């Protein structure tokens, strides 16, 4: 069955897509708006700005891969091509591996499709502590609704796979909250390979939705193009230097693109955007750029069942529980979800080797994994990490884990085990170097209480990057205002995960879509009349 390749069709009808690796001389490119990055923020902004009649230039450091490239459903080739640092990105001490996309479509190309609105409590916190304006649940609801409609977001209507059913059934038995996850898919084949690129264009990533719409409106997309430095002068940005990357997207070719635009939008994600600003010596009177970068630190619990789980097949995330997200004592809470379990991804988090790893892997079809996503950035002792740059201007991300966060992680180990046993697990093991399989809850409780909660011994991971350019009217604490405009620079906006003052307490994509859709609409209104007058 042939799947239409949107980009083959699009190029035939005149889409302007350029591969910077093939350029042989320096060029100057001009546009009303340049957007750096093509993920959730960049894609959403591109559609809105180009629909307003503005000329838009989109830059992406990664390559362009389309549905035809994903037919093999092969983990290694996808993780090594579609993710930042070939999926080897991590915090500076290596303690928290980071899964973040790097291709046209950004992380939306490889995420697991979970589309949950920003919790009301989170919006209240941002409003109260950071001076975020006009962003309560009621204010945001129409923007979420608009993007849900645009991207086909709806609760997963099919039966969850057995891996997700463990979370549902365990919560049900224990009387805990659980819910079906809304997913941004249309005509999903329920394969389970969202993380390696959707081969059937069912996932409504930016690659197949907003970017094609913007290309239809005349947007120019240049991939293999890395933003190096913005030039600041007189309270404005007056240029952007871009380096062309070679075919592998690893090394500059020596070709430079000089970009001039009326307005500059940064959407490179919560590591690359702060790094670009720091490299460019952006005005930062209160030293806020790169601060408070949050990750929803994730720990995991592995359970073995008698029955077949086959967590490698079927929609990867379809059930979640927020039972522990907002604890009554006001402490750090967490969201519970499930990851897909193809062998490479599964083996990478086990932190075992040799026969012990082989034995774990032999049980893969009977294994369920639960993950807990810590809501960081809401408490004084959990203020996120910091993105800085090294001497060469490359991003380095420091993230410390303090006692309250360790306590929440330990709490989550216990609750995840409880849910897994309630769902019928025959053994449970926390993802921790010192943990062994436990046969029942008493054993698990004792074992978890004794685990040394330290970096590297406790398995941690993240796929959510939030913060570093906080949004709000409090100029002491925030880099951008409530409309995403840079506080110190009039023609600069930040439309990506770096805008959040803390973590979200939900998978970030819908929060990015909602805020960017609102803020890009405001930007289009501000810029478009002039664009029309000039036309």
């Amino acid at each position, binding site marked *: 069955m042939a799947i239409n390749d949107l980009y083959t069709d699009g190029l035939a009808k005149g889409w302007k897509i350029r591969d910077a690796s093939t350029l042989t001389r320096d060029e100057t490119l001009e546009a009303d708006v340049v957007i750096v990055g093509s993920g959730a923020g960049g894609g959403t902004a591109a559609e809105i700005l180009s629909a307003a009649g503005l000329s838009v230039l989109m830059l992406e450091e990664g390559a362009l891969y389309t549905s035809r490239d994903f037919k093999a*459903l092969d983990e290694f080739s996808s993780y090594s091509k579609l993710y930042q640092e070939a999926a*080897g990105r991590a915090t500076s001490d290596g303690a928290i591996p980071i899964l973040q996309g790097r291709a046209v479509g950004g992380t939306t190309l490889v995420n697991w499709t979970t589309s949950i609105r920003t919790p009301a409590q989170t919006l209240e916190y941002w409003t109260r502590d950071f001076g975020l304006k006009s962003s309560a649940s009621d204010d945001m609801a129409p923007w979420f609704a608009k993007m849900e409609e645009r991207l086909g977001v709806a609760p997963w209507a099919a039966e969850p796979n057995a891996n997700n059913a463990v979370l549902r059934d365990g919560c049900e038995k224990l009387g805990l909250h659980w819910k079906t996850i809304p997913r941004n898919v249309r005509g999903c084949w329920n394969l389970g390979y969202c993380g390696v690129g959707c081969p059937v264009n069912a996932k409504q990533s930016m690659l197949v939705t907003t970017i094609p719409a913007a290309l239809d409106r005349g947007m120019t997309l240049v991939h293999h193009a890395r933003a190096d430095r913005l030039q600041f002068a007189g309270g404005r940005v007056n240029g952007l230097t871009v380096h062309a990357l070679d075919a592998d997207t690893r090394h500059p070719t020596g070709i430079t693109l000089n970009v001039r635009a009326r307005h500059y939008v940064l959407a490179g994600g919560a590591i690359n955007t702060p790094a670009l600003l720091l490299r460019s010596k952006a005005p930062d009177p209160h030293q806020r750029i790169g601060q408070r970068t949050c990750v929803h630190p994730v720990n995991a619990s592995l359970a073995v069942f008698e029955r077949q789980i086959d967590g*490698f097949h079927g929609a990867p995330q379809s059930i979640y529980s927020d039972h522990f997200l907002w604890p009554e004592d006001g402490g750090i809470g967490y969201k519970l979800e499930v990851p897909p379990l193809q062998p*490479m991804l599964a083996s990478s988090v*086990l932190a075992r080797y*040799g026969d012990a790893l*082989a034995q774990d*892997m032999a049980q893969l*079809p009977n294994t369920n994994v639960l993950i807990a996503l810590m809501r960081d950035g809401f408490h004084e002792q959990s203020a996120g990490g910091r993105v800085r740059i090294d001497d060469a201007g490359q991003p380095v991300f420091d993230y410390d884990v303090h006692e309250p966060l360790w306590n929440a992680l330990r709490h989550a180990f216990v609750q995840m085990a409880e849910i897994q046993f309630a769902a019928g697990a025959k053994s449970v093991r926390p993802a921790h170097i010192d943990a062994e399989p436990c046969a029942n809850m008493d054993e698990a409780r004792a074992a978890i209480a004794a685990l040394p909660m330290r970096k590297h011994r406790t398995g941690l991971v993240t796929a959510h990057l939030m913060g570093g350019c906080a949004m709000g009217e409090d100029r002491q604490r925030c880099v951008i205002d409530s409309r995403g405009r840079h506080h110190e620079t009039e023609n600069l906006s930040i439309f990506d995960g770096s805008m959040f003052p803390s973590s979200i307490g939900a998978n970030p994509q819908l929060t990015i879509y909602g805020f960017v859709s609102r803020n890009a609409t405001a930007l289009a209104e501000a810029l478009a009349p002039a664009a029309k007058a000039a036309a």
Partner: protein
Amino acid sequence: MSPDWAPATALDRRGFLKLGAGSAAAFTLLGASVQLAGCSQQATPAAAGFRWLTAADLPFARLLVAGVAGSALPADPAVADAALEEGVRRIDICLDALGAPAQKEVRKLFDLLQWGPFRRFAGGVAKPWSEATAADMQALLANFSASRLGLLNGAFRALAKIGSIVFWSQPVAYPLARYPGPPAWAVAALNA
């Protein structure tokens, strides 16, 4: 590079164990020792046919794949050899793709692992990697994993992760994980 040729100022076991747990500065310090010892490969070009691994890294990388695969390595020597070779190729792809700051850290670790005193005292492996076995690699991983130093635990996680990724991503390993691969009906439909 002689593993025993280290200056008198090089860290002995006691000095090494005094280093703070989990401190990035410790790697920097040890990296400096390696540079003093003339073992740094920071500027060494990649081995022929590779993007990032140097000729000296290759025996270590191959043993890492073998040590992490353990009993899952296919019994047929030719099949096992192909899996190891492909594993090393995949390690090279992964490390070449890291950002420059992470590459610097991995380079320090790989250089340290070539340096006799570190390999012996921290890893418990006396032989150079060209003469060592998969069991030696497993001994090193066990020592790093059990260490009270966060720094070595971190090195353990990094090594275990990369060994796991490059072996368990290969189709030759799928049957051992009882992984059938992507649903056959979908693959057939997609490629029809």
